[in-house]
């Protein structure tokens, strides 16, 4: 019975990992760039949610409606002003640029808002649903549901709408997309914005169940990197499923081995999968 409990906890955490990873996969798919400050987008959204709660008592789940558009704008501008300039450069420069932005953001927040841990405790933060021995946290469940809904929305957007199709076309074959009249510059900026908005949504959903501090994003970003590789290199569906699998494996691992190794277990599983299937679980090509 306790294993079932662990499984459910893992599944619910996995939903958040999915949401973060999907945004990263979208950016990776269209621009072939690793966004190292993806976690800092999440962190900024968490702070924004915190302030919205503190000053106008906005519920964290409702504040998604504000944080996602704000971070979309931030991502869009960052892509236009900074990222766009290194897209044609060697990948070391791309990695270092996003790394530099990440360092600057973390330390800027540390400087202005101190490294203190903050938290938002809503009325439902500790509420649970109990079925026999299994207890399901309500905020985790809401976060999971919303994460699932956002992922589904993104999927429909990519499949059904014209901008979505343009994004997929760019990811598949950049040159062919240009010849079909796709404006690559706009697609890149919009993809980055959407990636940032998804990270922001994940940030807001994390607020009722997690702490807020300047370095909060990085461990989540590392997990998202793993999930993206696991899910098959820039595949959005792969990243969504990969996130859930990662959450479950991590929960099982820390239950059966030790909670001290929670953060290492997922990464070790990743290395094992890499040995067996270098293309990722759902991927076809390696590069």
């Amino acid at each position, binding site marked *: 019975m306790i294993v079932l409990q662990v499984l459910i906890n893992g599944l619910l955490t996995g939903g958040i990992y999915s949401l973060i990873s999907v945004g990263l996969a979208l950016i990776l798919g269209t621009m072939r760039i690793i966004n190292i400050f993806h976690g800092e987008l999440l962190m900024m959204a968490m702070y924004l949610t915190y302030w919205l709660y503190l000053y106008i008592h906005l519920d964290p789940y409702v504040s998604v409606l504000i944080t996602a558009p704000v971070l979309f704008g931030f991502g869009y501008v960052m892509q236009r002003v*900074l990222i766009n300039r290194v897209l044609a450069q060697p990948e070391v420069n791309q990695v270092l640029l996003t790394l530099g932005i990440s360092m600057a953001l973390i330390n800027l927040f540390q400087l202005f808002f101190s490294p203190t841990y903050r938290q938002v405790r809503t009325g439902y933060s500790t509420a649970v649903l109990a079925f026999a021995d299994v207890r399901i946290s309500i905020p985790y469940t809401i976060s999971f549901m919303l994460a699932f809904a956002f992922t589904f929305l993104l999927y429909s957007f990519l499949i059904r709408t014209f901008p979505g199709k343009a994004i997929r076309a760019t990811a598949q074959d950049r040159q062919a997309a240009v010849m079909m009249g796709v404006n690559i510059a706009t697609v890149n900026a919009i993809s980055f914005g959407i990636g940032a908005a998804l990270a922001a949504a994940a940030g807001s959903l994390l607020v009722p169940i997690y702490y807020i501090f300047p370095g909060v994003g990085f461990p989540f970003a590392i997990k998202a990197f793993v999930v993206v590789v696991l899910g098959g290199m820039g595949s959005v569906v792969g990243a969504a499923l990969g996130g859930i699998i990662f959450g479950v494996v991590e929960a099982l691992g820390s239950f059966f081995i030790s909670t001290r190794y929670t953060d290492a277990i997922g990464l070790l599983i990743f290395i094992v999968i890499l040995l067996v299937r270098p293309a990722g679980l759902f991927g076809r090509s390696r590069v």
Partner: protein
Amino acid sequence: MKAASLSRRSAGRMQGRRFTPMNLLITMPLILLLLLGVPWLVSSPYFLDIVILMLMYMLLGMSWNLLGGFAGQISLGHAIFFGLGAYCYGFLINQHLTSVWIALASGALAATVASIPIGILCFRLRGPYFVLVTLAAAEVVRILAVNLVDLTQGAEGMVITPAFGISKTPYYYLALAFVLLELITMVVLCSSRFGYYYMAVREDEDTALAIGVNPLIHKLWAFGISAFFAGLTGAFYASYRHVIDPSVVLSLERSVDILLGPLVGGIGTLAGPLVGAVIMVSVNEGLRSLLGGAYLVAYGLILVVIVLFFPSGVLGVTQRFFTREAGGEAGKADEAA
């Protein structure tokens, strides 16, 4: 375009345009004499400490540069080998198992041995994915170091018996000797055919394979040699600082520090990491005393500025300046690239 110009530049360097035997014969003894005199010239322990720090970052930068600059494999997990070297040294010394010298060598060898499985795993991925997996591997090693308390004393940090007393002078000479050893290794290695193998792998792995250069083998060699020197530096660090803190030696910041030197100096050049280490350590110390806690913000911004405006580093900028002065074809070609 960029990569091609980079390779042409470094290839030119290797053919000995700068390092002509006559030049070396005259300048080297002078430089060496100057370097040997540093502890007398720099009397304040604080400044000698900074000089030693520069030498350490030269060691690490050259090590990273072999893998990242010449073989083109960008590692964001180089702190693994630095940390491993440090812990190996600390463990051997604290258990009174070996002498200081053997412990230093063991640190380097342990890192080399560890590089083989890590390399085989990480090199299954290419390009951006390789960067990600090195980052993840470094995180695993950090978490292990924090939790394997019996071996590492965990987050408290490992305290080590000092090796050569309190004076900084012996450490300076030791670091200087290591820098010379590594520099000679790099010069010899990169002017041999192996240097060209690494560059072939960097430019195009599939083509390299097609002309009979096995990318995996050569990447592993570069990784191993790189890890050897990173491990050696780690062991030296442990002997010098007497304390190993996992959040210092194994953090992402450490991995970033390691690659900043070559980045500032010029990635894929022999002198780049040397120049870069001097600049980065000076800037770092200057910022720290000027800005206090804000210096890391400036650090990140500097990274952004370098990447956007000086992607070929200080050496690239000065070289472009000199070739333009000469007005030769090379200058124009460089600008076009």
